[in-house]
């Protein structure tokens, strides 16, 4: 059967539960992004040291790997997801302060935020309205992510600015693919838990923002 026709062939009860999942995911995603913005603002005003970014990432990765999968089916999962996103937002403080200290810093940060929003809404809207199944991209995206991690690992020991720019460009493309993939998983029943769906989309947006900021900061006219 053509994968485009799956939603039309599914019983109405399933369509209702899919719509409920999509609605709950986008509501929770909006709330977590707002909460992240609040904690990032607090972090910027407190001028936290650079290692905060690393510490917050380690804390949030530990929560994502070890705590969220055990709590995602209960109300405790909501507290965990706000803990993760709040921590990740707080970790952005040193990065934002670094860019904000540049002459056109506020413009770069604002452009990266607006750009991330437009890219996410455009891609997620496309995946929702086209009803296409992008599950075929899963293996390709995961392999791409592994290659990026290996390149970042190499970049730690090889001082090559061009490599960092190339990594940021590839991550933007990969996260765009992941937005299509994760949105279509909600539509086609690959993900039925709105907390897990939210964290997937949140991580896509977070990485998209960080790497767009990095690319705009490096290639902006301000030298």
């Amino acid at each position: 059967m053509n994968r485009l026709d799956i939603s039309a062939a599914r019983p109405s009860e399933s369509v209702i539960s899919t719509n409920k999942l999509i609605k709950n995911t986008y509501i929770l995603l909006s709330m977590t992004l707002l909460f992240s913005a609040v904690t990032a603002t607090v972090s910027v005003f407190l001028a936290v040291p650079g290692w905060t970014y690393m510490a917050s990432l380690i804390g949030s990765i530990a929560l994502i790997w070890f705590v969220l999968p055990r709590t995602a089916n209960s109300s405790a999962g909501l507290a965990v997801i706000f803990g993760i996103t709040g921590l990740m937002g707080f970790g952005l403080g040193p990065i934002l302060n670094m860019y904000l200290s540049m002459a056109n810093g506020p413009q770069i940060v604002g452009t990266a935020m607006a750009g991330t929003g437009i890219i996410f809404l455009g891609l997620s809207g496309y995946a929702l309205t086209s009803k296409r199944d992008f599950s075929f991209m899963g293996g390709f995206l995961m392999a791409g992510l592994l290659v990026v991690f290996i390149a970042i690992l190499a970049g730690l020991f090889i001082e090559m600015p061009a490599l960092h720019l190339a990594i940021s460009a590839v991550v933007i493309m990969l996260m765009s693919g992941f937005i299509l993939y994760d949105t279509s998983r909600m539509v086609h029943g690959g993900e039925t838990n709105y907390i897990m769906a939210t964290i997937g989309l949140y991580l896509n947006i977070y990485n998209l923002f960080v790497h767009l900021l990095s690319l705009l900061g490096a290639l902006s006219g301000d030298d």
Partner: protein
Amino acid sequence: MDWTKIIWAVLLGAMILFLWPRAKHMLKNSPKAEQGDWQAAIVPIALVAGFVVLLIMIV
């Protein structure tokens, strides 16, 4: 060597080890693309690339 680099390296190594079996499983078990599927994914991603170039020119 900067101690933060060592922590980043350990963190990245752990992420690679964590993702490796998942990536292998997904590469093996992902459904095959049908005709037009890749085109439907590449066109919006290419538009994103164009949009990012536009943003770089703006700032």
